[in-house]
């Protein structure tokens, strides 16, 4: 009781501290870069970590300059639109402002950042502030970096296995005892390799699931946002309305992929009408593009996966964007000449 009373007194005293000094002090203590912008994306406050991240020598980061001199505009605009939509949808149901995770690239293309963005509403309409926390993820964002780190774990068992095999094949005259010993090596090393592989597979899955460019989001919010996105297009969109599940997605990448797929179908098949239906399964959500007409063979779908996605952060292929979310695409032919191109994304795993 006494502790609670003391705490309340301390809180009152804290309120007497100049709020700007308090904010500056808190910001400087954070290890991640923090930038606060106004509604026009002009920088209002930033901390030292942000200055370090964005190479202050170039003087790109200063109060009053545009955030988009530092990092690309499209991912930020997407995140802002989705956050506004999310805030509209949950305005009466939550005390906290939602935040959104996404990846962005420095305009000088030297760094990739995992960004967490929140909106600070203002009393003046449309004059909100945005807060973005930047974490440098350049070392792992490129998919090839992961392989270099993990591949060494395979070297020892592979070497042992190869040595044993070469000994067996190159020295057939060896004694039965030696032969038996080498055969044991084969068994042991095969097992070790299998286990090493399983652990790598598991680590990769966890890594991909926890990657900080994926944002946690309720499916009804995401589907509603995608429906709005497609509203201006000719695509008819339907999604489950009364049932929501947790998803972990790269929302910016997903929208780009959906746009790309819709564009590909329209160019390749020129359907009179293109429908996008969303279904929620036990383990996946499915985005089904449906049209009357010839389906797209798997061979073509597989090559589509290698398409570079325009405006994606790091110029990634569709396969890389989808696989980072645990997703994939495939096509199906139905009766009555109806065809489907399905994009599947896993539901968020409970950690």
């Amino acid at each position, binding site marked *: 009781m006494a502790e609670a009373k003391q705490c309340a007194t301390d809180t009152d005293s804290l309120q007497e501290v100049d709020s700007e000094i308090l904010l500056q002090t808190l910001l400087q203590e954070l290890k991640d870069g923090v930038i606060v912008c106004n509604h026009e994306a002009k920088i209002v406050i930033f901390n030292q970590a942000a200055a370090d991240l964005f190479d202050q020598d170039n003087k790109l980061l200063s109060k009053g300059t545009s955030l988009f001199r530092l990092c690309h505009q499209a991912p930020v605009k997407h995140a802002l639109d989705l956050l506004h939509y999310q805030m509209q949808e949950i305005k009466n149901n939550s005390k906290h402002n939602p935040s959104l995770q996404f990846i962005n690239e420095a305009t000088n293309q030297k760094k990739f950042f995992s960004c967490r963005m929140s909106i600070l509403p203002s009393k003046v309409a449309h004059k909100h502030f945005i807060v973005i926390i930047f974490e440098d993820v350049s070392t792992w964002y490129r998919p090839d970096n992961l392989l270099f780190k993990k591949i060494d774990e395979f070297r020892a068992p592979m070497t042992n296995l190869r040595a044993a095999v070469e000994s067996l094949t190159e020295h057939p005259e060896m004694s039965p005892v030696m032969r038996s010993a080498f055969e044991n090596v084969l068994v042991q090393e095969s097992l070790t390799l299998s286990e090493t592989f399983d652990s790598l597979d598991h680590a990769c899955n966890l890594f991909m699931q926890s990657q900080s460019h994926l944002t946690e989001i309720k499916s009804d919010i995401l589907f509603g946002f995608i429906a709005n996105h497609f509203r201006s297009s000719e695509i008819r969109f339907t999604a489950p309305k009364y049932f929501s599940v947790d998803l972990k997605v790269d929302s910016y990448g997903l929208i780009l992929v959906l746009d790309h797929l819709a564009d590909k179908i329209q160019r390749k098949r020129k359907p009179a009408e293109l429908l996008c239906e969303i279904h929620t399964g036990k383990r996946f959500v499915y985005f089904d593009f449906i049209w009357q007409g010839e389906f797209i063979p798997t061979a073509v779908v597989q090559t589509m996966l290698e398409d570079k996605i325009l405006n994606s952060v790091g110029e990634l292929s569709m396969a890389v964007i989808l696989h980072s979310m*645990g997703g994939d695409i*495939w096509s199906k032919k139905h009766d009555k000449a109806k065809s489907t191109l399905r994009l599947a994304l896993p539901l968020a795993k409970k950690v």
Partner: protein
Amino acid sequence: MAKNILIVDDAPNIVLSLEFLMKKEGYAVQSVGNGEEAMRVIADKAPDLILLDVMMPRKDGYEVCQELRANPDWQNIKIIMLTAKGRDVEREKGLALGANDYITKPFATQELVEKVKSLLG
């Protein structure tokens, strides 16, 4: 009469083991190294079961699977996909395209034998 199994894989080392295992169980075995060859062999004589690798040159396992299921004559062929792709969504994709079962490499040989036996009754 022995049931026929077609092995479709471009890696000779695994083909060697699969042939050995299947013959030991009393099946008649034929092997090919890519999807195109597989389609030619199947058109000539449809096997009872196919052990089908996913990643192959000249028509991958997904394409073979979808072509087979598009032809009513080949609906009864059992397909087990063998793949180095271990993500949940790839299993979902293989089954959606018509595979009866899906095994991720590396696998226990006994598990594969059991799956083959179970599918061929």
